[in-house]
């Protein structure tokens, strides 16, 4: 059964879209990430124009993150002050990202730019996460106690900077500059890649800021909702590239998938989850990297000029 997408102007199988939404929702439920990093490449793969894929992917991330955040608010595991500081950085980064995206579009290099961002950021994060979780698994096997990583970060660069602020929920008294910078980076990625940036935000908050792990996921979701929502608005206004029909189908599939995923997630150990997510992130970045390096099957590509 086909559906004609009004903004993308292509006809796609409904069940394919529900399947993509469901599959990504399943993974995001298991790993507690938005899943934008999978949605955007998959949409490109089935023939959705890049602009529409990025903008609509961001809309899907909003839905997935709202669902997760509500759970965390009930449990009190959201540091609103930290989230707000990162948000301010996020808005600046988001604006830079949309501007750069427009420049790339004019230069005809949108696809290359999106691919590069993926390979670079996901390759780096995936590798870091893989190393860390691999060590954690080995430690768990040998029966050694986990290292007290908080004592290391308490004396890190985040403590020495100016404009110190107290973040009670996170248990931190640090400079506002590092959270601002991290927020900026994530805002930029959200606007250019259609991702929420959870896969960057979560490790950054744990390893760079030394935040209490308990509040990291909730705080990351809080900040992601606002940054991706802002990206959706900006794309809708400047590029008119959000496809609501596409978004609704992805969201419906994603919501169902996420619920099943959460159940599966509870049965896995934390470090097992992290290493699986690391492998997934690495696989996506390697796949996209290979597309850049290997000789393409078609050297030519076409784009209608009045099309998003």
């Amino acid at each position, binding site marked *: *059964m*086909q*559906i*004609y997408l*009004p*903004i993308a*102007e*292509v*006809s796609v199988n409904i069940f394919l879209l529900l399947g993509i939404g469901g599959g990504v929702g399943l993974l995001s439920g298991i790993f507690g990430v938005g899943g934008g990093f999978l949605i955007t490449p998959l949409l490109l793969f089935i023939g959705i124009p890049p602009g529409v894929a990025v903008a609509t992917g961001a*809309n*899907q991330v*909003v*839905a*997935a*993150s*709202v*669902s*997760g*955040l*509500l*759970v965390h608010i009930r449990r009190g595991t959201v540091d609103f002050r930290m989230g707000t500081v990162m948000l301010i950085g996020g808005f600046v980064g988001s604006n830079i990202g949309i501007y750069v995206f427009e420049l790339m579009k004019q230069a*005809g*290099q949108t*696809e*290359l730019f999106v691919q590069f961002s993926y390979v670079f950021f996901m390759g780096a994060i995936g590798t870091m996460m893989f190393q860390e979780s691999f060590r954690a698994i080995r430690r768990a096997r040998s029966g050694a106690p986990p290292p007290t990583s908080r004592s290391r970060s308490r004396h890190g660069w985040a403590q020495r900077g100016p404009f110190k602020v107290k973040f009670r929920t996170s248990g931190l008294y640090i400079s506002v500059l590092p959270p601002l910078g991290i927020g900026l980076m994530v805002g930029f990625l959200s606007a250019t890649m259609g991702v929420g940036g959870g896969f960057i935000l979560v490790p950054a908050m744990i390893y760079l800021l030394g935040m209490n792990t308990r509040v990291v996921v909730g705080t990351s979701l809080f900040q992601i909702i606002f940054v991706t*929502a802002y990206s*959706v*608005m900006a*794309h*809708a*206004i400047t590029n*008119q590239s*959000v496809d*609501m*029909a596409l*978004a*609704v189908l992805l*969201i*419906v599939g994603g*919501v169902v998938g*996420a*619920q099943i995923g*959460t159940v599966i997630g509870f049965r896995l150990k934390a470090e097992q989850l992290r290493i699986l997510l690391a492998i997934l992130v690495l696989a996506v970045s390697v796949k996209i990297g290979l597309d*850049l*390096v*290997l*000789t*393409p099957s*078609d*050297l*030519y*590509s*076409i*784009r*209608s*000029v*009045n*099309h998003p």
Partner: protein
Amino acid sequence: MIRALILSLGLLAALPAVAETAAPAVPPPEQVVAGLSENQIAITATFNGSDILVFGAVKRQTPPPDGAPLQVIVTLEGPPNPVDISRKGHVWGIWINTERARVTSAPAFYAIATSGPLNQVLSQTEDLRYKITIPQAIQDTGVASQVPDGEAFINALIRIRKDQGLYVLDQGTVAVEQATLFHTDIRLPANLTEGLYKARIFLTRNGQVVDVHNTDIRVRKMGLERWLYELAKNQPPVYGLLSLVIAIAAGWLASAVFRLAKR
């Protein structure tokens, strides 16, 4: 209606300056009378392509001439757009778009159906005059000045659109009966853009165009598709907010349902 069209065609033919699409010298010994099964196509959410039946007859005052058989060519042309064609090159070990050429106008859709092999049905000079074949339908003036091998870019455009089912050449699919009646089906693909589609029906003998008939099909998004498209273009902030409201509502609903299910 058809009579009025024929009349206006006859009038156009009387003007010598109108050479592009008007009928050749008056009065043509054989005239085409044609119709389409539809002249409105609605793109709704479930739009999955459409078949257009093109049918007609040849009207004569005198018996048909001997010699070469009568042939029919049907073309259907979608709204023209400028198109950017990019070619990847190998730079520092990766493949990136290195060259780009802009075609001033290429139809979003172009189908051509004939009653026989194209090279027998249509002469090259007539093709140039009426712009019937796919390469003729693309206005590629200026491409040669943008890239050294403009023809390769045009060929790539045609190849990609053929693969997408947007450019179609069907030879021998127009059925002609007793040199008088003809009909053919033209398939419109699911990935259609909206606009005015121009249909042309040519009668040829010996590769020469004897008569031509023009008509239009209006392709338009309808219902929900129309509403969303208009909203996205005319009220971007409202559209963006609505997208967000849907996303937030869906997220909240999922969380609420999940909480109920756990109890």
